[in-house]
C-alpha cells in the first residue's frame, strides 16, 4: 500500500485542499438513497429522500420513503420527527453519536480540524474522484464505528459508507440537485 501522504503531494491534492474546496459550499440540496444492513433485521432497509445543508452547522435529512421522517441537526441539537413524534436530543449527551454524526457534517463543512479530533484522516485519489477515509482514534469511538469512507468529486459528496463496529453498515448515495 502506497503512503497516502506521498500520493497527495504528487497529485497536488491533499486534505487541506479538499477541506478548502468543501468549505466553499455554503449550502446544498441533494437527493439520497441509503441502504442499511443491520444484523438484528432480516433484510437491509432502504430509504430515500433529500438532504439540505447550510454552512456551517445545519444539516437536514428528509426521508420520504418508506416513511416520512425528518432529521435536523442544528448546532448541538438533533431533532427527529417521525409522524406525530418529535425527538429532540442534545448531541453532547451522546458523545459517541455526536462524533459519528459530526463526521458527516464536518466533511460537508470542510472542517478538517474538527474531524481530526476524533478521526485519523487519509485521502486517496484525485480532485475529480477522491476518497476520504476516517478511522476513529478514541477507544470509545472504536466500539461504535469501524470506519467511514466518503467518496466525492471536487466539492461534492457522492457516497458515504459507514461500517459500524458490530458489523452493521450503511451506504448512502448522494446526487446533487441544485446549488443556490
Amino acid at each position, binding site marked *: 500500500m502506497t503512503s497516502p501522504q506521498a500520493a497527495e503531494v504528487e497529485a497536488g491534492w491533499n486534505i487541506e485542499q479538499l477541506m478548502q474546496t468543501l468549505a466553499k459550499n455554503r449550502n446544498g440540496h441533494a437527493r439520497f438513497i441509503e441502504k442499511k444492513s443491520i444484523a*438484528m*433485521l*432480516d433484510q437491509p432497509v432502504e430509504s430515500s429522500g433529500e438532504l439540505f445543508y447550510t454552512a456551517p452547522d445545519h444539516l437536514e435529512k428528509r426521508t420520504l420513503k418508506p416513511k416520512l421522517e425528518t432529521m435536523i441537526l442544528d448546532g448541538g441539537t438533533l431533532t427527529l420527527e417521525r409522524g406525530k413524534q418529535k425527538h429532540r*436530543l442534545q448531541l*453532547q*449527551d451522546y458523545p459517541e*453519536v455526536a462524533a459519528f454524526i459530526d463526521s458527516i457534517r464536518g466533511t460537508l463543512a470542510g472542517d478538517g480540524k474538527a474531524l481530526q479530533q476524533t478521526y485519523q484522516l487519509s485521502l486517496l485519489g484525485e480532485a475529480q474522484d477522491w476518497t476520504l477515509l476516517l478511522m476513529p482514534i478514541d477507544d470509545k469511538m472504536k466500539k461504535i464505528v469501524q470506519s467511514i469512507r466518503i467518496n466525492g468529486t471536487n466539492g461534492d459528496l457522492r457516497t458515504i459508507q459507514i461500517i459500524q463496529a*458490530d458489523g452493521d453498515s450503511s451506504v448512502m448515495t448522494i446526487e446533487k440537485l441544485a446549488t443556490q
Partner: protein
Amino acid sequence: MLSTTLLKPARTAIVLWLVFILACIGIISRSSFSADLSAFLPRSPTAEQQLLMDQLRDGLVSRLILVGIEGTDEASRAKISKALAQQLRNDPSFVSVNNGEPVNTARDRAYLFNNRYLLSDTVTPERFSVSGLHAAIGDSVDLLASPAGLLVKSLLPHDPTGEMVQLLQQLDNGHHPQLLDGAWASQDGKTALLLLQTRASGSDTDAQKQAMQLIQQSFAHASTATSATLEMTGPGVFSVSARDSIKKQVRLIFVISSLLIALLLYLLYRSLTALLLGMLPVITGALAGIATVSLGFGVVHGITLGFGTALIGEAVDYSIYLFMQSEQGSRTEASRQHWVQQSWPTVRLGVLTSVFGFASLLISGFPGLAQLGLYAITGLLAAATMTRFVLPYLLPRDFRIHDVSRIDQWLSRQAKHATAFRAYVLILVLAACVIVYSHRAHLWNHELASLSPVSAADQALDKRLRSNLGAPDVRYLVVVSGDSQESVLQAAEQVSVPLQALVEQGQLASFESPARYLPSLSTQRARQASLPANEVLSARLAQAVEGLPVHADRFAPFLADVAAVREQALLQRADLEHTSMAMAADALLINKGQHWSALLPLTAPEGGEINADSIRSALSESAVAGALFVDLKAESNKLYSTYLNEAIVLSLLGLLAIIVLLLVVLRSPSRVGRIILPLAAAVITVTAGLALCGVQLIILHLIGLLLVVAIGSNYALFFDQADAIPKMAPCTFASLLFANIATVIGFGLLGFSTVPVLQAMGMTVAPGVILALIFSAIFARKNHAHTD
C-alpha cells in the same frame, strides 16, 4: 444624694421607667431578627399568594445557587469546575451539584430503564395487543434505521416497543448549556457554570450563608495558583448578601448618626450631663419600639431597625425642646414646671399627630409597613412620655446648658422676614404641582422587585448566569392539592391530560410533573395490569412481527423483563434516591402536615407568551377539583400594586386623622389650614424634586412623605402656638432649628444607604423636614415675637 431628696411621684416615675426599660431589654434579648423577604409578603395571603410565599421561601427555585467561574483559560476553568463539583458532591449541604459531568446519568438511566413499564404513559393494554405491538415494533425498526438508530440498537431486544426512548423524550427539558472540556460553559465560553441545589430552604439564611462559605472554601482550594474568580447568585445568595448589607449599613448608620447627633448636642449644650440625659428618651423610644414590634410580629425586620436609627433624630427633639425651652438661670425647677405647662401641650399634640399619622399603617396587610408603624408609634410615645414624666426628675439641681439665646434672637429676626418669601414659595409649589402632574404616568414603580435589597449589578449577574444555565425561573405553575401524596399524584396525572393537549396545540412548550418520576400507585397498578402474562405476550409477539423485518426470538429479553415487572413492587419515593430525579420530585411535591400539593411548572413556547385564559379554561374543563393556575410574576406584582394602593389609601387616612385631630384640639379650621399648608407644600415640593431627579417612587417614599407631615407638624404647631399665645417659650426658634438638624442627620444618613427601602425613606424625609420648617416659618402669622 438625688434619691433622698426625690419626691414620691418622682421615685415612682423613675422606678416605673427602669422596670419598663428592663422589660424591653428582656423582650429584645429573646427576639429574632430577619432580613429576608418576609417583610414584603402579605399577612393574610390568598391561595395564590401563599404559593408565591412558599416558593420564595423554600421552593425549588429558592434553593438554587448558580455559580460562575471566570478568568484564567478554558481548560483550567473546566478543571476547577470539576474539582469544585467533586468536593461539593461529598457535602450533605447540597442535594445536587450539576456542572454537566455525567455523574447521575448511569443511575438515572438505570431507574428509567428498569422501571420503564411503570413510568411510561404509553403503557396501556392496547399497546400490548397484537396490533399495538406490531405498530410499536415497526416504529422501533424505523428508528433503528434512522440516524438515531445507534442510540436504540442495544436496547431493542429488551425494549422493542421503545418505552425508554419515550421516557427520555418526555424528561428532556431542552435547556442545556454547552460543554467545554467536559464542563458546562456560558454561550460565549468565558464562564464555567455550575448549578447547585442546597438542602436548606432559601429562607434559611444562616444555612445559605454556610453553603456559600463552603463553595468559597472549595473554590479557593480548587483554584489555587490560578487567576480564576468565583461568582455566585440565586435567591439564597441574595438573602445572605441583603442581610449582610442591611446589617452592616444599619450598624454603620446607627454609629455615625449617634455620633453626629451627640456632637451636635454637645456643641449645643456644652454639657456632657445634658448630652447623656438628652439621649435617654431616644434609648427609651428605640427599646420600646423594638420590643413592641418583637411582641407584635414575633420577628423584627432589619428594615425596621434601619428606620429606628433614623427615628433617633426625631426622638431627640423632645429633650431638645425641654432643655432649650426651659428658662436658664437659678430658678430651673420652676422653669421646667413652666415648660410643662406652656410647651408640653404643643409637643404632646405633635406626638399625637405623628401617632395618628402612623396608626393607619398598623392595619396594612404589608408586614413591613405595619412594623414601621408600630415602631414609630411606640418609639415616639415612649420617648415623649419619658421626656415629660421621667426626664425632669433626673436633671441635677444645678443642671444648665449653654446659652443659645443669641442664636435664637438672630433666628427670630430672620423669621420675621421670612413671610416676605410667601409669594416665591407659592410659585415654587405651583411649579412642583406642574412637575408632579407631568410625571404622573411614571411617578410610581409598580414592580415588587423595586423593594428588593438586591443591587442592580447583582440582578444583572443573576440574569446572565440564569439564561446561560437555562435554570428554571418557574414563573407559571399549575398546582393541585390534596390530603395525601397519592391523591396529588393522581390529580397531577389528570391535569396532565389537558396540559399535554395544550403542548400539542403549541400553546405550551412543555410542562413538568412529579408524576413523571413517580406515577401514582393507581396508575402504576394500571400499567402493571396492562402487561400480558408471559405465554400470552409471546404468542402475540409472534403474530405482531409478521411483515416486519425482525424475528420474534430476538425479543427473549423483552419477555423476561415484562414478566419481572409484573411481579415487581410498585415504585415509592425511596426508589428515586440517588438519582437526579429525586430532587425534581421533591421540589414538585410539597407536604405540610395533612396538606399535599403537586406543582406542574409550565414552559412558554419559544418566543411566545403563555395565555393564562386558555390555560384556565382548559383546567376548568378538565374538572380536576381545585387545580390552580398561577403566574408567580404577575402575582408578585399584583401583590405589590395592592400594597402600593393600600399604602396610598392608608397615608391619606393618616393625613385625614391628623387633620381631624388638629380640628378637634385647636377648634379652628383656619389655624389647622395654616398648619397643614406648609406641610402640604413641603410634600409636593419633595415629590417634584424626586420626580425631577428621575426617581420612581416606591412605597417607602410614600411613608417618607407621611413622616414629613408627622415630623413637620411639630414645627408648624410651634409657630401656631407662637401665634396663639402672647409669650413664647424661650429659645423656641433655636430649639426648632436644632431639632430639625438632628432629624435631618438621622434620616439624611439613610439616604446614603444602598438598600433601596432605607434610601427611599432617607432621601424623602431629610429634604422634606427642612422644607417643612422653612415653609412653616414663612407661612406663620406675622408679629410672633417672644423677645419683644
